[in-house]
């Protein structure tokens, strides 16, 4: 899956990929203060490429847990289910439904996206990416966006969560890269010097089919140097 970190202060974005085997579950957000956790399970194409370098992987299952509310939300490309204690409500991506529960609001928009808001300080959007059902290789997958995180604590971790706190970066030495159509540069972030490549990714929140291009500096090797630790540190045994 692709990750895009928008840095409002710099009016720019940094992106990276995480390449792992289908079935791997990655920790995206974990706030030890509230217990709020978001994990994502990776899926691959129907016919995976034999070459790991060209293999495409996505998020196929996402889990949001809020132990303070005794709540678990599991989203797949087929169903969306909300568990509260022993009870579970299951919805389909064909529903348009708003669910209100103890200060949490979930809005499912038919075949488009799902918004989860915890009070006024944490809002996530999960986007459904649908492909042609009979496509020989590709399959439906999910996108995950953090719209608001200002109520989350400074201790928040995870592949996305660690970037909820303000951070600085600088880019210099922009020069043609190995791909003549793209430019490489040197990025200084978290006291590290990284070689990055100018590229773009897409934000599908507003235009769910075409997306909106987001120019970004791409960090190679599973975000090495940009993320805290290495990407395998974020592998967790299960969605919840």
């Amino acid at each position: 899956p692709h990750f895009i970190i928008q840095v409002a202060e710099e009016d720019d974005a940094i992106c990276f990929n995480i390449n792992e085997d289908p079935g791997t579950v990655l920790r995206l957000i974990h706030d030890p203060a509230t217990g709020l956790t978001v994990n994502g399970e990776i899926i691959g194409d129907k016919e995976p490429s034999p070459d790991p370098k060209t293999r495409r992987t996505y998020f196929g299952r996402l889990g949001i847990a809020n132990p303070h509310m005794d709540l678990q939300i599991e989203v797949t490309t087929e169903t969306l289910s909300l568990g509260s204690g022993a009870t579970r409500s299951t919805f389909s991506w064909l529903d348009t439904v708003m669910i209100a529960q103890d200060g949490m609001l979930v809005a499912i928009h038919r075949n488009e996206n799902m918004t989860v808001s915890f009070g006024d300080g944490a809002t996530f959007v999960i986007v459904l990416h649908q492909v042609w059902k009979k496509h020989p290789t590709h399959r439906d997958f999910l996108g995950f966006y953090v719209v608001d995180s200002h109520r989350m604590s400074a201790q928040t971790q995870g592949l996305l969560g660690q970037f909820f706190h303000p951070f600085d970066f600088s880019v210099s030495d922009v020069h043609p890269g190995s791909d003549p159509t793209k430019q490489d540069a040197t990025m200084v972030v978290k006291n590290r010097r990284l070689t990055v490549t100018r590229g773009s990714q897409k934000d599908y929140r507003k235009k769910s089919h075409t997306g909106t291009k987001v120019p970004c500096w791409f960090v190679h090797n599973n975000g090495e140097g940009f993320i805290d630790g290495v990407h395998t540190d974020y592998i967790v045994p299960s969605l919840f």
Partner: protein
Amino acid sequence: SLPEGEGVVNGIEVYSTKISCKVTSRFAHNVVTTRAVNRADAAKEVSFDVALPKTAFITNFTLTIDGVTYPGNIKEKEVAKQQYEKAVSQGRTAGLVKASGRKLEKFTVSVNVAAGSKVTFELTYEELLKRRKGKYEMYLKVQPKQLVKHFEVRGTRCPVGSGSPAGSRLLCGVQAPLWDPGSPVGSRLPCGFRLPSSSRPVRSAQEAEQVHVPPRPQGHVSFKPSLEHQRSCPTCADTLLNGDFIITYDVNRESPANVQVVNGYFVHFFAPHGLPVVPKNVVFVIDISGSMAGRKIEQTRDALLKILDDIKEEDYLNFILFSTGVTTWKDTLVQATPENLQQAREFVKNINDEGMTNMNGGLMRGIGMLNEAWDGQGAARRSSIIILLTDGDANYGESRTDKIQENVRNAIGGKFPLYNLGFGNNLNYNFLERLALENHGLARRIYEDSDAHLQLQGFYEEVANPLLMGVEMEYPENAIQDLTQNNYKNFYDGSEIVVAGRLLDQDLNSFKADVKGHGAVNDLTFTEEVDVKELEKAFEEQSYIFGNYIERLWAYLTIEQLLDQRKKAQGEEKENLTAKALGLSLKYNFVTPLTSMVVTKPEDGESQTAIADKPGEEANTVTPSMAYLTNYQPPQTPYYYVDGD
């Protein structure tokens, strides 16, 4: 033609009977056509005898004699009654529409047919099929009185289900007719059947060939027995056809709601699934008066014991028994823990009949208990239900029905539904129905039969799993009019809420339909964006759909609800509701309890009249009818006449 004894009985040959059933979404349109010829040398009487569902409305009846068709005209019942009474005063025997068994009404008409003449009877009726325990059921009784040369029942279901108009799938099954006394009752085949081509009579349902109905675009179930198949034995002239033709199906439900729009009318079907069951407070108010003695009390005990097995631990319950006095199992509602359920079983096993019928006392105690729980549990999400079972009228304590109604109404205060189960025939069912309808519930008859305990249990299962409370269907006020009931106390798993209405502006492009309800743990709002133009275009392309079925469905539902409201109304309000229901019945040609259908044929200088009529609930239950009866009566002044009540 057939020789005497080969399908000709008393000179009358019924050479064709066709039953065509067309189900479009949930609306069934059925046409029963029988053709007969008088092969005798003298005039003979032919009777046409059909059993149709109680919930159906006859919409047309025509007689064709020697090529001349006499159409049915819908009339206000009073007007038709005068013609009926005139006929009776002239010494004519009248056919009747009467309640017949649990599910059916019997429609009968007789006509005197001249020697060598042919007669065709055609009866059309329509019905909105209701979803119960996850399925819709279309039911036909197949029981001709004599061999019929061309006999066919043909069921067609048109895939206007949910999701996209063209994308539904109906699952159907047929309960096989009883081919001989030894065949298993109620054997179910997956999707349909046809008799094998061999001449040997089919001896059991299992021998019938199965026909799988393709999922789309249409599905057919055909039942077409030859004369050989109909014979009770190779040399017999009597028929063994006697059974039920049932199509059961559910729609492929991709999303909880489905809105259909045609010609400015819309219908909104709502049946979510995947929601957790709302825990409930349930009080059983049981009549144990002397009249319940014997089998009824035994069956009540059996049913309650079975119900106790199904009660979930998060539910709260209690039993109130009333006879001359009122006794309770516990002083308050108790949780259905394994220990409490065991105690409840012991209590139920010891229920015995005694004394008189203090219905008011029993109801007041039960309602009081639910009210206490309601107040005590505060904002807890619980559904409250009160179920009354009685077999007779109140005759101890407060026995005035209007006073009981008032007491119950005031005590419940619209907070929860009251369900009334009327056991047997010796009770004022109309009162029970009024009482239930007034309190957002419904009444159901429990027939005194070997399966009464299953009927009781079945009813409990229908209301045992509330998924939503306080359901409100909302539409833009400035776009919709003539809406049918759009708020319900509870939505039960396996059922379906149907709301229909009219678009104010026929050129409206789109509108939004919201369904709001309180679930077990959260509040939900389901939204359906209805693209009117796109839907209408999709329906136009489906030529097999009879164009105005949504309008007729709306009219059916509106009349049904007006008739229900009329039961609990009084004075001017009742008159207004009657006038509205009558107006719609006349407009849409529905034979309802307010209207009759009259067929008039001038003959011998005198008008001959046939009337199709619909009985009310007060009509007596009679033995199930024989369908397509032909019989001989001495020649007399010809008549054909049908009326009810």
